[in-house]
């Protein structure tokens, strides 16, 4: 009888409190959004299921939890803690990215830079709200709208915030169709949304596509060496794709490798959100600041595009500024759809992808810069 009572007192049913229940609901919402609404399913489903698994209450000391030494989840968490998974994700991302549209219109890269302003605004806001500098930098990077970059920087600067920062970053990436369109509508007129981008007048050569990753890695990593783990693998993956003699490697990088890393990254980030460590006032602050960061990033890209139009003869559709955040390809798709609503024959996708890929580079540079500032 005593054994039975002891067993029952070790079950999840006995140990559960309201925080676990709340997080189980959050995990279920993620699964619903990913499955039924198809909002970023590749991210939300691993995270959502991880949240559920991570919030099954257990008796501490069994070596089960993600924070307990020697547990399976803890071993897998190594890739998050050290920034290994984000680097691998960037390798696959590089092997997927086609820079042709960016190489054909390099000035669109400036929109990728402008959209990073949300990061620095949020840095100041987080400091003003009482966060420590390393925590503030980790929260600010959410403005880059890049999950792996956010996790990478937070793992380096404020590992105790990985859960809330990752969940906030991925939530806002998934909620792009909800967050970005009102901001784009608010900041642009219908006439501006109808602006047609001119087609590139020349074909980008293979040599250009081949040299770009080398030039990119040298220029960006010399400027912010702390971004090597992200941009080094990103441009390496792109070189594998473009060189034409390593198709097998590029194929593996953009399929099996990135998929494996995404599964473990999402699942482990979800599992790290144990209710008792996750549900704090700080987490709520992080969610609030993350929304601010993401909105300002979108807005600053759009406004910068409008400013560029004052100085250039060839007008830019300001919607493209919203694609300067590095949520690939969600924000590019949203820009394209909004452009189509204003003019059903205006196709902005290729141009938006150019801004999107420069946003990836920009946010990785920002992560490197912030890391350097905090060392």
């Amino acid at each position, binding site marked *: 009888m005593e054994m039975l009572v002891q067993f029952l007192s070790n079950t999840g049913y006995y140990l559960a409190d309201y925080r676990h229940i709340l997080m189980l609901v959050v995990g279920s919402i993620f699964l619903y959004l990913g499955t039924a609404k198809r909002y970023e399913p590749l991210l939300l489903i691993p995270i959502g299921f991880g949240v559920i698994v991570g919030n099954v209450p257990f008796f501490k000391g069994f070596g089960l939890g993600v924070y307990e030494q020697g547990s399976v989840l803890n071993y897998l968490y190594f890739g998050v803690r050290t920034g290994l998974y984000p680097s691998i994700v960037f390798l696959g991302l590089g092997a997927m990215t086609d820079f042709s549209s960016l190489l054909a219109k390099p000035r669109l890269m*400036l929109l990728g830079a402008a959209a990073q*302003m949300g990061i620095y605004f949020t840095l100041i806001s987080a400091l003003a709200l009482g966060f*420590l500098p390393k925590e503030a930098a980790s929260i600010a990077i959410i403005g880059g709208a890049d999950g792996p970059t956010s996790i990478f920087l937070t793992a380096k600067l404020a590992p105790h915030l990985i859960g809330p920062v990752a969940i906030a970053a991925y939530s806002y990436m998934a909620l792009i169709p909800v967050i970005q369109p009102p901001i784009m509508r608010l900041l642009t007129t219908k006439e501006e949304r109808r602006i047609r981008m001119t087609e590139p007048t*020349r074909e980008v050569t293979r040599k250009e596509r081949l040299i770009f990753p080398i030039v990119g890695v040298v220029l960006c990593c010399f400027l912010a060496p702390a971004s090597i783990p992200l941009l080094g693998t990103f441009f390496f993956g792109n070189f594998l794709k473009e060189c034409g003699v390593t198709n097998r490697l590029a194929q593996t990088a953009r399929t099996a490798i990135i998929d494996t890393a995404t599964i473990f990254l999402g699942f482990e980030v979800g599992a790290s959100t144990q209710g008792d460590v996750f549900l704090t006032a700080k987490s709520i602050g992080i969610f609030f600041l993350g929304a601010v960061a993401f909105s300002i990033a979108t807005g600053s890209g759009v406004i910068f595009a409008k400013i560029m139009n004052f100085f250039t003869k060839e007008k830019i559709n300001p919607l493209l500024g919203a694609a300067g955040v590095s949520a690939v390809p969600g924000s590019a798709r949203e820009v394209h759809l909004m452009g189509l609503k204003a003019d059903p024959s205006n196709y902005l*996708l290729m141009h938006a992808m150019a801004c999107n890929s420069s946003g990836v580079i920009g946010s990785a*540079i*920002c992560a490197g810069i912030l890391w350097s500032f905090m060392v």
Partner: protein
Amino acid sequence: MYGFEAISMHNGWAMALAGALIVFSGLVILSTVISQLYKVLDFFEDRINRYKAKRSPSANQDLSNQPESKSDMEKRFLDDLDGVIDKYKVASEPLGDTFALADLYRLAREMDAPHPHLTISYLKQHNFLFPMGDGIFSWHQ
């Protein structure tokens, strides 16, 4: 500590300003370099071709392999417009009657068609590709 006091205490203003300037200057430099990249490549290719031509008369033939001018390219394209359309129609058959331009572009790349982006743009602008809405196209009958 909160508010402006906290920002100043942790050097927040300087970090934000310097960070924004660094990322901007980095991407401006990168965009400037890549905007000039094709000119540099053309310059070196031209030099190499001239050098080869000087070294051996047979290499003179290489000069004819230089990238053709835009007007030549357009003329050649228009001369063979029907052929190009047929080629693209055959390539798009696996996609069905309606398809996204991105899929057509991918197929054109796979079959090594010259200048697929410009070609598809031309076909779209001249209504050979008919928009069905939501980014879906079909061939104009």
